[in-house]
């Protein structure tokens, strides 16, 4: 279903490249299609090119090469004020010399709307973010969360079809951030707008998005739904960047379709699913999620290879028990299991054998 979107994409990047100094590429050959009504998140570490992509879409940076299209229309030469894209900035960028009402009125005034129409829309936008009684305040008199809501209302007040958000929740504390994530998601669903969201917080990306584009080194490493991204990462970077991950280096011993037998550097043999592996003898990094590791033989599949492990540390986290193990030369192998009534309590120093379903261990490119 998602692949079908490419044809009638609302926003499309085609072979977009960007260089600031003429020597290095910040964005390398970006191809991305965003469907109408989609919530797409650009996720990546700082300097990965995600904000540059957003700025090119907004019109504040020009693409060095390639084409960006909005609703089928090339917009490379369209100045930002004619693109009709709403934008929420990291520091909110509320105009400090204007009241909240004047801030919201600004995009309507520059569109030549009359006063009655403006007032209706401002009231509607403020009510939408539950800030109806704040029209006469100055931004400086508001808390961070309130400013965030006003910035959101201002980006939505002129009914744009596309809204860009550049790390809009970065300055809020954890609790407020989670609350606002929910509200933004809710507004997105309610208004049916297209949202392109930039963040470096993977938890935020997983909770809010329809699809996530993971950026690194100027390229999209993987573009997929949150569950796909988490459960089936396509390379070591994505596996390591999204969620907690155990990485075991080794060599492909045997390859049979997508079933791979991996000889770890410590000599242990394990089962894995080959992802971007072409032939046996190739170096690989096997990625396993901590919650998919089992230490009870009855939970492992028949005939699965197991590895010996030393319990190094058990951390009590309330709902889960996080256990650090020494496995195959690595002493930072993490296993998580739920803190249920009948759960086996492991002790540091204990020797156990661990294993997993082969589809949960993914043989990826070597790090």
């Amino acid at each position, binding site marked *: 279903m998602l692949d079908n979107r490419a044809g009638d994409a609302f926003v499309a990047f085609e072979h977009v490249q960007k260089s600031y100094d003429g020597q290095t590429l910040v964005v390398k050959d970006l191809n991305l299609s965003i469907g109408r009504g989609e919530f797409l998140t650009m996720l990546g570490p700082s300097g990965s090119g995600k904000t540059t992509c957003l700025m090119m879409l907004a019109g504040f940076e020009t693409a060095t090469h390639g084409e960006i299209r909005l609703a089928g229309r090339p917009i490379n030469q369209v100045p930002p004020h004619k*693109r009709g894209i709403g934008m929420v900035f990291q520091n909110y960028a509320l105009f400090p010399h204007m009241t909240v009402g004047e801030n919201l009125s600004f995009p309507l005034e520059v569109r030549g709307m009359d006063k009655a129409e403006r007032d209706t829309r401002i009231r509607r936008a403020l009510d939408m973010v539950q800030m109806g009684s704040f029209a006469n305040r100055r931004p400086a008199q508001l808390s961070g969360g309130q400013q965030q809501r006003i910035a959101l209302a201002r980006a939505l007040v002129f009914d744009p079809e596309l809204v860009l958000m550049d790390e809009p929740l970065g300055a809020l504390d954890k609790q407020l951030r989670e609350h606002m994530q929910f509200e933004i998601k809710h507004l997105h669903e309610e208004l049916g707008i297209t949202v392109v969201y930039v963040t470096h917080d993977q938890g935020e990306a997983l909770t809010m998005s329809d699809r996530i584009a993971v950026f690194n080194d100027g390229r999209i490493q993987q573009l997929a739904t949150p569950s796909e991204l988490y459960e089936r990462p396509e390379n070591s970077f994505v596996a390591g960047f999204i969620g907690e991950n155990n990485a075991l280096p080794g060599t492909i011993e045997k390859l049979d379709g997508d079933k791979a037998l991996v000889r770890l550097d410590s000599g242990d043999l394990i089962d894995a699913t080959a992802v971007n592996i072409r032939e046996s003898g190739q170096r690989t990094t096997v990625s396993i999620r901590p919650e998919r590791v089992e230490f009870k033989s009855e939970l492992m599949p028949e005939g699965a290879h197991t590895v010996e492990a030393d319990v190094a540390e058990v951390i009590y986290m309330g709902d889960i028990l996080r256990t650090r193990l020494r496995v195959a030369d690595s002493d930072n192998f993490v296993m998580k299991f739920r803190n249920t009534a009948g759960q086996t309590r492991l002790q540091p120093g204990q020797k156990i054998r661990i294993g997993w379903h082969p589809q949960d261990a993914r043989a990826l490119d070597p790090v």
Partner: protein
Amino acid sequence: MANALDPHAAIVTTAAGETDGTLTTADGRPLARALARSQRRAKRRAFLLVLPLLAFILITFVVPIGQMLQRSFYNDGFSANMPQISAWFANNPRGTPPDDAAWTALATDLQASAEERSIGVVGTRINYDVPGTRSLFTSTGRKVRRGLEPPYKETLLAIDEQWQSPQLWSAMRNAATPYTGNFYLAALDRTRADDGSIEQVPERQQVYVMLFMRTFWLSLLITGLTFVLGFPVAHLLATLPMRKSNLLMILVLLPFWTSLLVRTTSWMVLLQQQGVINDLLVWVGVIDNGQRLQMIYNRTGTIIAMTHILLPFMILPLYSVMRTINPSYVRAARSLGATSWTAFRRIYFPQTLPGLGAGALLVFILAVGYYITPALVGGSSGQLISNMIATHMTDTLNWSMAAALAALLLASVLVLYWLYDRLVGIDNLKLG
């Protein structure tokens, strides 16, 4: 206790040791006094540290300005040295023709004053009001020192016919009281007529009001020019990368590090009729050799040189404000649909106002009191009120007049400052 049942009140009582309504410390002393005592030492030390500065300001700033202001309405040059005629003026109303008693008092005073060699001071004082009378006093003084015979009127008139001039007597009457507003009247091109009413001085003597107007108008123009020239430069400084903006900043500050005379001389080299700019214009063919432009030793010269000198005072406050304006404001405005001009006019420019206000106030106040540059390159049409004050200080030695002009200048600047505070608010001022 207002509310004995309130549990919080009970806690406060035990914690602070409250007795009969005032808070006390643990050993029973009132809290306010204990606090004052604990801070007294620190306050005393802070005061002692600023004491030298306080004394310096008092001695070099407050006292001289006070003295100057006093001179503008107090001058005892005549009244202290001519006590008898001053008393006669006090006892007889304005319009009384000088009788024998008056002539006697005048002659006695002149003689005494001549003996004490203070006749020059007296003559100078009257000379302020009636030009050319100083020599009348000194020459008469030389003659009366040998002795004076009654009838005094005839004797004095024999020395000089001018002694019966009504204008002279009116001037002497005005000078007979040490406190006078006449210097302020003169500073506004007004004078006191013989009957005591206030009237304008003859048209060809009206200079001060015109000079005040010119000073304010030129200062306003120069402020406007520094804004037009300085705003883009400040914007460039604030947006360029640090390394480049530092280089540019040195260029902005260069005028500060160059001697005023060197700067002014370079303007002379550039602007004079046989100077670089005129040569260039003639060479290019824009003007004829016979029509070389007069750009210095007139008002144009004053404007150009002062704009150049005062430019950094506009650029620096603007720069310091602009540097703090986040570029995302303009981006936000653009994304909301504003053209770059609208974004500048409605979003960027209003945020630079505190810097613009500070710069404009600074440049205007400096320009209003500027002295050296107009004196060097201003010719006659580029002279400002400060040059007139200087003339009265050094040439005519009419310090009271200089003081009155300076006091008016000071007052008008204060009025402007007050207006600025009312309109923009002094809290919005950002000097750096």
